[in-house]
C-alpha cells in the first residue's frame, strides 16, 4: 500500500491528495483524538489506587502498579487468565497455520474429487454467522467433552478463521511458480518435505498473515468465550474484564479495570504495529481482491 505514484512529478494523488500543512495538522489532531481513549486508559491504569475515581482528568500523582496488583485478586488471579488467553491464542494460531497451509497447498496444487465443491463449502461458511450456531456448537463440544475447555474454544476459533486462512493460503500458493516444486520433485523431495522445506518459505507472508488474524481473533473474542466457558478458572482476558467491572464488593474499581484493558490491548497493538504489512496484505487478498 505504500507503493504508488511517488515517482509522479506532481504528487497530487487525486482529490484531496496533497494536504497542505494546515490540512495535515488538522488530520494529526483528529488522529490524536482517535488514540486518546487508549492513551488515557493507559495513563489511568498507572495511577495510585483510588485516584482513577477521584480525579479522572488529572495526571497520576505518581506512577503506581497498584491497579495491576489489584487484578491479582480477581477470581483465580490475572496470571491464570493471561495464561488462558495465551494458551487459547497459541493453539488457535498453531492450528490455523497447520490446517490453513495444508489446505491452501492441497487446493492450489492438487486435483481430487469434489475439489471445487469442498472449496466452496469452506468459503461459504463465511456467510453463516457463528453467533447463530452457539447452542448447537455447545452441544457438539459437550459430546466431545470439550465444554469449559480451552482446547475446544481454540478449535472453534480455528473454524472461525478457516475460510479466510484457506483462501489466503490458496492464493499464496497459486502465486508460487510451478517450476520450483518440479525442480524439487526431480530432486526427489517427498510431498511433506516439499511443503515444509520448499513451499512454506515461499508463502511465508501468507503464513504470517493468517497467524496474525488468528491471534487477534482468539485474543479478543468475547461472545463464544462468554457462552462456552462457564468455569471461572477457564476464563480468558475479555471475560475477566467483565468480573473486574462488577468489582469485588460491588464497587467498580475503575483503575483496575483499565489495567485489565491495557493488558488486553497491548499485544494486539504491538503485533499489529510490527506486522502491519502482513495485516494489510491479508485484507487485500482476503477481503478486497479475489
Amino acid at each position, binding site marked *: 500500500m505504500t507503493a504508488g505514484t511517488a515517482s509522479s512529478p506532481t504528487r497530487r494523488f487525486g482529490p484531496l491528495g496533497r494536504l497542505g500543512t494546515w490540512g495535515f495538522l488538522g488530520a494529526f489532531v483528529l488522529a490524536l483524538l482517535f488514540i486518546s481513549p487508549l492513551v488515557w486508559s493507559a495513563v489511568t491504569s498507572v495511577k495510585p489506587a483510588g485516584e482513577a475515581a477521584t480525579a479522572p482528568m488529572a495526571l497520576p500523582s505518581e506512577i503506581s502498579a497498584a491497579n495491576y496488583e489489584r487484578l491479582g485478586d480477581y477470581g483465580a488471579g490475572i496470571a491464570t487468565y493471561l495464561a488462558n488467553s495465551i494458551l487459547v491464542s497459541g493453539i488457535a494460531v498453531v492450528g490455523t497455520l497447520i490446517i490453513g497451509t495444508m489446505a491452501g497447498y492441497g487446493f492450489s496444487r492438487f486435483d481430487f474429487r469434489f475439489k471445487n465443491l469442498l472449496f466452496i463449502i469452506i468459503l461459504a461458511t463465511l456467510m453463516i454467522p457463528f453467533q447463530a450456531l452457539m447452542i448447537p456448537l455447545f452441544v457438539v463440544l459437550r459430546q466431545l467433552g470439550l465444554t469449559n475447555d480451552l482446547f475446544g474454544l481454540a478449535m472453534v476459533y480455528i473454524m472461525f478463521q478457516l475460510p479466510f486462512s484457506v483462501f489466503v493460503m490458496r492464493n499464496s500458493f497459486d502465486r508460487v511458480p510451478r517450476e520450483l516444486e518440479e525442480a524439487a520433485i526431480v530432486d526427489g523431495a517427498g510431498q511433506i518435505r516439499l511443503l515444509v522445506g520448499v513451499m512454506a518459505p515461499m508463502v511465508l507472508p501468507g503464513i504470517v498473515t493468517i497467524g496474525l488474524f488468528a491471534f487477534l481473533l482468539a485474543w479478543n473474542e468475547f461472545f463464544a468465550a462468554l457462552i462456552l466457558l462457564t468455569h471461572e478458572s477457564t476464563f480468558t482476558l475479555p471475560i475477566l474484564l467483565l468480573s473486574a467491572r462488577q468489582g469485588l464488593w460491588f464497587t467498580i474499581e475503575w483503575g483496575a479495570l483499565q489495567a485489565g484493558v491495557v493488558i488486553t490491548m497491548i499485544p494486539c497493538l504491538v503485533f499489529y504495529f510490527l506486522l502491519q504489512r502482513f495485516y494489510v496484505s491479508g485484507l487485500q487478498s482476503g477481503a*478486497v481482491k479475489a
Partner: protein
Amino acid sequence: MTATATSREGRSPATRSTYFSRRRLWGAFFVSPALVVVTIFFLAPLALAIWISLTDWNIGGFQRFVGLANYQRAFTDARFFEALRFTTIYTLLVTTLTFLLGFGLALLVRAPLMRMWALRTMFYFPVVIGLAAASFIFVWLFNDQVGVVNEVLMALGLIDKPVVWLAHPDTAMATLVLMVTWKNAGFAMIILLIAMQAVPENLYEAARVDGATAWQSLRRITIPLILPTIALVLIILVVTSYLAFDQFYILTRGGPNNSTITATYWIYNQAFIGFRFGYATALSMVLLVFLVVLGWLQLRILRRDVTL
C-alpha cells in the same frame, strides 16, 4: 511414496496412472484436516441447529419434536421484532457514520507518504484492540461519576451537570454509536484506501488538465472506480452491526428499560437466561437466513461477478 512421486512423467501408462492417483490421495490428505474441522465445528452444528429449532428443548432438557411451532411463535414475537427494529436503526446509524468517516479518512491519508502512514496507523489502532476492551474503555469514559467525557464537556461549558449517558435510551444509543464508529472507521478507511490507491494516477492528471475540480474528479473518477469496494465495505458493516452483542452486553446490558436489546441479545436472553434452547435456535435460524442473503451478496462482490 517418494520413489513413485519422483517419476512423475511416468514412462509407462501404468506408472503414470499410479502417479496421478497418488497425487489425488495427497491432495485429499492435505485438505483433510480442514474438512474435519468444517464437519465437526460447522456442518454438524448447522444440521443440529435445524433439528433443535424444531424441538421444545428447554431447561428441563425434555426434547419433543414440535414441527414449526417455534417458527410460528417467532413470527408473532413482538419483542423479537422490537429487537430487530432496534438493531436495524442501530445498523443504519453505525453503517452510515462509519462509512462516511472511513471514506473521509481514506481521502485524507491516501498519499503514499511516511507521515500519512503514521496517521493511518493511529486511525487503525482502535480496530485491532477488540470490542470488549473498547467497550470497557467507553463504559468508563462515559461514566457519570468518574468519566472523562463529562469532565471535558463541563470544562468546555457545554453541559452544567454530569450527564448519565447510559441511563437514557437516546444518550445510550449515541454513546454506543459513537464508540462503534470510532472503533470501525479505521477498518472502512483501510479497505477503501486499498481500492483508491489502485485507481491509476493518470486519470486524475488527465481530469486536472481538463480543468476538473477536486469534487468532480472524486465524483466522476474515484467513486465509480471503487464502487464494488464501497458495496463490500457497506455489506461487511451491515452484517457486523446486525450481529451486535458484545458492546451492548458490556455497556448497557440491554437497558435502560430494555431499550437497547439487539437481535442477538434477545436470542442470547432466550437461550441463556430463559433456557428456551429450541425457541432461541429458531430465532437464530431466522436471523441466519436474513444474513446469509447479505453474505451471498458479499461473496458475489468478492468474486467480481457483479459490477454495481
